[in-house]
Structure formats: structure tokens, C-alpha cells
């Protein structure tokens, strides 16, 4: 239970960085921390105390494998999610560099030409 609580604390740290900090790169890091926190949550769902990795080797009985392995489905979901997070992060960083070229600053409070 403490693992889930700490994971939630990680999510809140990411949310804090996204909302409170003014520097663009710190906001991007906040989003990255949040995405990793959610991936960790998905893996924690399949966790089993003193379980083995879900790899079937030649000398393993199927019944003991089912009873002792951790859940492999969330791990497959998380692989896809990490790749998606990578794509989003790359796009965010490229856009931050372009924003610096146009506005000359990394401070989000000054990048406010559109208002209303």
C-alpha cells in the first residue's frame, strides 16, 4: 500500500512542477515525471510479492509459473506507453527550442501574445 502512496506522491510532484514553475524546461520535466509515474502505477498493478519475472524457460512447470509470476499484461501496455511518452517529449523539446528562437526567453509568463 505504501508503494501506491509513494507513486501518487510522484504524480503530485510532477503536477506541482507543471503548474508552479515558470521555466519551460521545468514544465516539460513535470510532464515527463507525471508520465513515468503513471507507467509505474500500471506496473505496480501487476506486482506480486516475491514473484518471478514472467519469462517461461524450458525447465519450468506451467502451473508454478502461473502461481508465482508477476502479471505480464501491464508490462506490455507500459512498453507502448513509454514509446508514446518519448514521442511527446521529443515534440515538446523541439517546440521549446523554436519558442526560444521566436520570443527570446524561456519564461512562460512573458510568452503571452494571445490573450482574451
Amino acid at each position, binding site marked *: 500500500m505504501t508503494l501506491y502512496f509513494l507513486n501518487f506522491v510522484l*504524480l503530485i510532484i510532477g503536477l506541482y512542477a*507543471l503548474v508552479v514553475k515558470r521555466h*519551460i524546461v521545468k*514544465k516539460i520535466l513535470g*510532464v515527463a515525471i*507525471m*508520465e513515468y509515474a*503513471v507507467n509505474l*502505477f*500500471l506496473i505496480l*498493478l501487476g506486482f506480486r510479492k516475491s514473484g518471478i519475472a514472467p519469462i517461461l524457460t524450458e525447465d519450468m512447470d506451467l502451473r508454478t509459473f502461473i502461481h508465482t509470476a508477476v502479471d505480464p*499484461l*501491464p508490462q506490455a*501496455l507500459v512498453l*507502448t*506507453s513509454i514509446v*508514446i511518452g518519448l*514521442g*511527446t517529449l521529443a*515534440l*515538446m523539446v523541439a*517546440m*521549446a527550442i*523554436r*519558442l526560444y528562437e*521566436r*520570443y527570446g526567453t524561456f519564461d512562460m509568463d512573458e*510568452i*503571452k*501574445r*494571445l490573450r*482574451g
Partner: protein
Amino acid sequence: MSYLLPLFTAIPIFSAILILIIGKFDKKNFPRIWSLLTSLSLLFILAVIWDKGTMIHEMGGWKPPFGVVLVKDNLSQFMLLIVNVVAFLTIIYSYVYMIKFEDYLRFFTLFLFMLAGMNGVVLTGDLFNLFVFLEIASIASYALVGYGVDAEELEASFKYLILGALASVFILFGIGMIYSVTGSVNMADVARFIIVNNLSKNNALLMATGLFIVGFGLKAGLVPFHAWLPDAHSSAPAPISVMLSGVLIKVLGIYALIRVFYSVIGITPVVSNVFITMGVISMLVGAFMGFGQDDMKRMFAFSSISQMGYIAVGIGIGTPLAIIGALFHLLNHAGFKSLLFFSSGVIQNSTGTRNLSELGGLREKMPVTSAASVIGSLSIAGVPPFNGFWSKLIIILAAFSAGYFWLGGILVLTAFLTLSYYLRFQKNVIFGEPASIIKNVREAPFMMILPMVVLAVFCLLAGIFNSWIINNIIIPAQSIITNQLVYISSVLGM
């Protein structure tokens, strides 16, 4: 015939990559022609599988709930019609519009990826697959909003990007919560599990409900998650504004909400009340903020927020009549909002500005554009005999007949507010004294006028033949929404 279902996503992705490879040799003509052919072929496949009942396609031969299934039921085919027709018209429009950007190879690649993602969201029967396709469409749209890299477009795109990533994080969290309770991510399997074990008051499902409302509500542009919408829709190039406001917020937001809440988790009175509240606030905020705008596209964006509020109210009320009204309004809004954004692109192309205070008297110089824009404004304001009147009438009648009298009054008030600010738009742009900057404008090229004319004719015909449309297209979709058990049994084959 179900082998045609994966082609809706496979063909656009294949075309996008082919455009990237061959476009290195022929930058000018190949991307545009090939995208047009792709969209045409998708419309052809849709005509083949139209109204053939519910089709299930198991990817890779694995049966549900072990494998990913693609499901085409009546609601999916309704959304596919909207997405593919608007995409086809947008490609025709951007055939000529994108010439002013020199390098439009990547535009068509990203556009086809966005189309593939939206088709995938509509056709999938698996929650995590929904998330993956939603991300494909979203990332493509983030890059497309900032396509011409001016300062304002980049700022709008960055804001949209950060908020969209936040929404995706919440949606994934919600999917994890559902997995922790039910042990599966297949939509029909989750629904069966919840019904069999009577889990409607489970705390984890309640948290998943909240997370989904935040995540999908942000993608739909409902208040209080609307902050990205005015900037993104007004700063994007005109074809992208059409796709964003006409289809993306409907498919990724409203369709996903309907699918998750009506077919998977099951609707509860709490969720209905939340939808109605968010819908009402969206309607009012969109209507009031739309008054003070000088930029034409920003006004249209706030109007989109307002109309999404109408649809959310219709879904929240939940009676069959309300859902019919909501779906019809979804179809109509795709029609007239796309028309209005197309016309704004034409006006900006010809006159160089889109501020209401600088324009005036366009009806002499650009007659076809003016006529189409007038039809669009009358339709969205709800003037008979155009289509907006009928869909708003159905939602108002449903609100009164379900006992929500205050709600019905607010709906009528918002209709009048919408009429008033669209009349202001018409007076400032089309009618009135000719402004000084429009001395040398001519009518727009043919390929940019054709989609507007098609949509204007659609608005007129959908208003006149509304009962035919409702009986043949909308009511089958609505019957899937209100019958959760039919969905479960047709997917799991029980």
C-alpha cells in the same frame, strides 16, 4: 467482410509513409494527389460496409478478451461517415491552400496520421487500443497546429501540447484503475464484469470515472478544461482548424465519453449531472466570451465550445430523445462549423486579415463565399429551415420532457445569444460598408470554394430532409448507445 475494418487505419498510415519516401523525389504533386486518392478509397470502403450490421474483426486471430478487437456498430459507422467526409473535403481545400507554405510534404503526412488515429479511435473495441490511437491523433494534431512556425502559432501549439499530454496522463491512469478492478482492458469484457459482479458503487470505478471525465473532457473542450481551445483553433492554418473543430474534438472527446460511459462503465445519475453541469457552463462561457472577440476564428472557437456544451447536455440528460438530438447536433456542427472555418480561411487568404473591425462589405466582391457564410451562420444560429434549428429543437424538447425546466430555459437563451453574435459577424464582414482593404479582392479558387458549396448544400438538405436522416442514420446509432447488453453480446458472442 470484416477484413475491411483494419484498412481504415492501415491505408492512411501506409499512404503517409509512402508520401514520405516518394515525396523526396516529387515534392509538388505526389503528396496531394495520393492523399486525395487515399481519402477517396476510404469513402469507397465505407460505402461498401455501410449498414451491414455489427462487424467484429479479431486482430491476429486471437479471440476476445485475449486479443484486440475492432468493432463496427451503428455508432461507429455514423462517426466514420463524419470523419471521412470532412477529411475528404479538407484535402480538397488544402490542395490549393497549402501552396503558400513551401514544404507541404509533412503537412499531408501528419494529416493522414491524424486521420488514421481518428478512424482507429472510432473502430476499436479495447480501452488501451483507444488510448494508443488517441495519442496518434493527438500528437499529429499538436504538430499540425504549429505548422507555420510563427510566434503565435507556436505558443498556441505549446499550450495545447502541454494540456493534451496532461489529459493523456489522466486517461491512462483511469485505464489502469479499470484494469485493477476488472482484470481486463477489453471494453465488452469490462462491461460484462461490472454488470455480473454489480460493481457500480466501487470506489476504484468512481475514481476512474472522475479521471475519464477530466481527460476526455479536456480533449472535447468542455469548460473548465477549455483553455487551449481558442488559441489552438484560431492560430492553426484554416484546414487544420476545420479538422480540429469539426471532427477532432468530437471524436476524441464526445465519442470517447459516450463509448466509455454508455458502453463500458455504465451511466449513473452522478455522471449525468456532471455532464449537464459542464454542458451548461460551456454553453454560457462560450456564448459570452464569443461576443468580445475581434478575431473571426477566435469567435468561431468559442462558438465551438458553446455547441459542445449543447451536445454534452444532450448526452447528460440521457433519454433516447436527448441522445438523438445530441447526435444530430454533432453531425450538424461538423457540417456548419467546417463551412465557417473554410470561409474564414478563404477570407484571410484573399484579404490578408481576419479581424472583424477591419473587414466589411464582402458580398459584392466574393459572392459565393458570402452566400456560403450566410448559410453557415444561419444554420448554427438555429434558424429554420436549416439543420441547426431541428437539432437544437430536439435537445430543448428533450430537456423539457425530462423535467429540466431551468435547463430548457438556458438552452433557449443560449440559442438567442448564438444568433446575436453570428448576426454581428455577418454585419461586420459580409454586409455593411465596403472596407478599404477589400478593394482588390477576387473570388477564391475553385478547389477552395467546392467544399464550402458542398457543405452549404448539406446544411440546407439536412434541414429539409431531417426526418429521413434521423430515421436512417441517427436512430440506429442511438439504439446502440442505450442498449449496453446488445453491445456486450455482439462482441463476446454470447
